């Protein structure tokens, strides 16, 4: 361990940073004697980078040499950037020493493709196998499965990694072929299917034999780049929704496109990444996973893109004023979740506390409901207020998207006028 490793660490972290995933959730494993560490089921962020993203894992590439030339990737072979390769010992040492100091939850290992997918995958598997079997590392490991790698290697990786992932990157095959000529959907979806098969098979075996090995217990995740191609939010979200239908897909990440080179004119020349759009996609993703929304309700042929100035749930509510107002003291959980300003937590609190007494707007505010939004969509104990049906959806939209800065007096009755 010396200054040379420091230099490599810098290069390889720079190369790995565009992978969004840094989750360490999904596996709960307590300490085993003779081993190092544990895995906390909910995941812990040990630091936050200056861009506000969670640092939970040591996110690093084994090597950033790559034979592929994918236009959106920083490590494409035609990019001129410093290249480095870590040895397995160096990687293991870094991981364990960082881990012992409570810097990280574990390792996120990825790699550029050298020689061929199988060769690369083999080296990755070797690294995490060493970490688990020789160095008895019991923390979290997330490993990238290389597109095009064989099923045997994926099966072996699943025994040592907590989560495996393959990135789709581009949500439609034609664009993917245009930007990454060496890849196609088959090479991406095949490893995904192998992972799924492995997980399901191991779950089946564990029903019969308690100590049968676990296979990637934290499932799999994937990532899509947003804004590099002309794909609409409808394309992206329909693909996500289809992926979530599969039993092992835990997360789909969206990554606002950041130009990694200036010479490739197949890609748009953005000055800033599309951060708002990315945020709206995550919000829509949450609606799919936790708010019981169907993808067609969020984006469809009439509304192929998410609106940028209001969040997808509010947008849905404004398109469907007929289902509101919702009575807080009577409505069922599914309906409460649909109210803008009420999240999963407040919906649950409302359900349990309204058994004791009817709830009023003051209590809702204290519970954590965002009354600024919710008040146009609910009725509660008090006299009915102006809901979205009395004032029109357009006015509600205006009221809620008004630029803050001018503080209005909440105690004053506001009569909206439409011009």
């Amino acid at each position, binding site marked *: 361990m010396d200054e040379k490793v420091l230099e490599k*660490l810098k290069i390889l972290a*720079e190369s*790995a940073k565009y992978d969004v995933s840094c989750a360490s959730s999904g596996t709960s494993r307590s300490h085993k004697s003779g081993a190092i560490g544990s895995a906390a089921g909910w995941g*812990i962020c040990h630091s936050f980078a200056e861009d506000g993203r969670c640092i939970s894992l040591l996110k690093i590439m084994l090597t950033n040499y790559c034979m592929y030339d994918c236009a959106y990737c920083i490590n494409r072979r035609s990019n001129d950037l410093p290249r480095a390769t870590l040895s397995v010992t160096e990687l293991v040492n870094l991981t364990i*020493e960082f881990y012992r100091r409570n*810097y990280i939850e574990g390792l996120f290992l990825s790699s550029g493709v050298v020689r061929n997918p199988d060769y690369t995958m083999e080296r990755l598997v070797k690294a995490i196998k060493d970490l688990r079997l020789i160095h008895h590392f019991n923390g979290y490991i997330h490993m990238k499965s290389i597109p095009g790698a064989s099923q045997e290697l994926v099966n072996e990786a699943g025994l040592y990694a907590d989560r495996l992932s393959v990135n789709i990157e581009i949500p439609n095959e034609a664009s993917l072929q245009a930007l990454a000529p060496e890849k196609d959907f088959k090479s991406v979806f095949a490893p995904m299917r192998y992972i799924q098969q492995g997980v399901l098979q191991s779950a089946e075996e564990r029903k019969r034999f308690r100590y049968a090995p676990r296979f990637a217990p934290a499932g799999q995740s994937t990532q899509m780049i947003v804004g590099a191609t002309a794909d609409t939010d409808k394309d992206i979200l329909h693909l996500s929704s289809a992926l979530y239908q599969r039993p092992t897909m835990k997360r789909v990440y969206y990554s606002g496109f950041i130009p990694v080179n200036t010479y490739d004119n197949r890609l748009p020349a953005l000055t800033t990444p599309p951060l708002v759009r990315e945020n709206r996609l995550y919000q829509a993703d949450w609606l799919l996973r936790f708010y019981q929304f169907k993808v067609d309700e969020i984006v469809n042929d009439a509304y192929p893109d998410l609106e940028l100035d209001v969040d997808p749930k509010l947008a849905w509510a404004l398109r469907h004023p007929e289902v509101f107002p919702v009575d807080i003291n009577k409505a069922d959980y599914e309906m409460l979740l649909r109210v803008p300003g009420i999240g999963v937590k407040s919906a649950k609190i409302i359900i349990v506390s309204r058994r004791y007494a009817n709830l009023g707007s003051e209590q809702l505010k204290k519970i954590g409901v965002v009354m600024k939004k919710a008040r146009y969509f609910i009725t509660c104990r008090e006299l009915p207020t102006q809901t979205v049906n009395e004032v029109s959806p357009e006015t509600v939209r205006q009221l809620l998207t008004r630029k803050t800065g001018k503080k209005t007096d909440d105690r004053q009755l506001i009569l909206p006028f439409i011009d």
Partner: protein
Amino acid sequence: MIIFIYDKTFEGLLTAVFDAYSRRTFPDLLLAEGEPFPLFYDEAIQIYTDDRKAERVWKGLERKISKSSLSGLTVTWLSELPEVDMLLFRYIRKAIDAPATIEFNLGDPDILETAKIWKKVNNERLRVMQFFRFQKATDGTYFAAIAPIYNVLPLVLPYAQDRFADQQWLIYDLKREYGYYYDLKDTIEVRFKEKDSHLLTGLLSEDIMDKDEKLFQSMWKEYFKSIAIKERLNPRLHRQHMPARFWKYMPEKR
């Protein structure tokens, strides 16, 4: 106004609940021994902490509210906020008096307030788990200093014991001047009469630092810098997730 004077321990509080029910007088104010009395009061009653009485109140509570809410009471107590004892007193009284559990009645201000403090303490516990950093000393002990706003060190212990079970460590609360030392077998509470510089500043001085410690700290620092995407810098979000009060003891922000 009726005042109960007790020793500011959780057992003391439970004893106060017991005594209040047996005397059928309930306090308007709880004071620690030695705290100044208010100008006007009717009666001041001294509570003598009794583990058996505390135990009985706890047993009674176990029949009334769930395990998780019970642990919530102790967590709320660790907030050490000035009014928290009276709040918990009212909570416990409500729990005992009601025929069915009151723990989910978040329409009640005391129960909501308790739930909120519980959450705050829990968040602080999580932050300490996230952001405490070990430094390795020459004798192989890993040392970490923390200065949390609530007394959450006891709540962090299960995490540290499970995760760092094969290394000796000392986690020390600089504010409350106590810590826990783990010697590969047991965890013991430690207080120091004479404090070395690292027990005051929270940082190991270079002469007792392991020889590789500096290198790993600078590697982590370098990694931290490299992993941020320049195009997406967001200092507000950064501070929101990782409040500046933790930075002093984190190598990447020092």
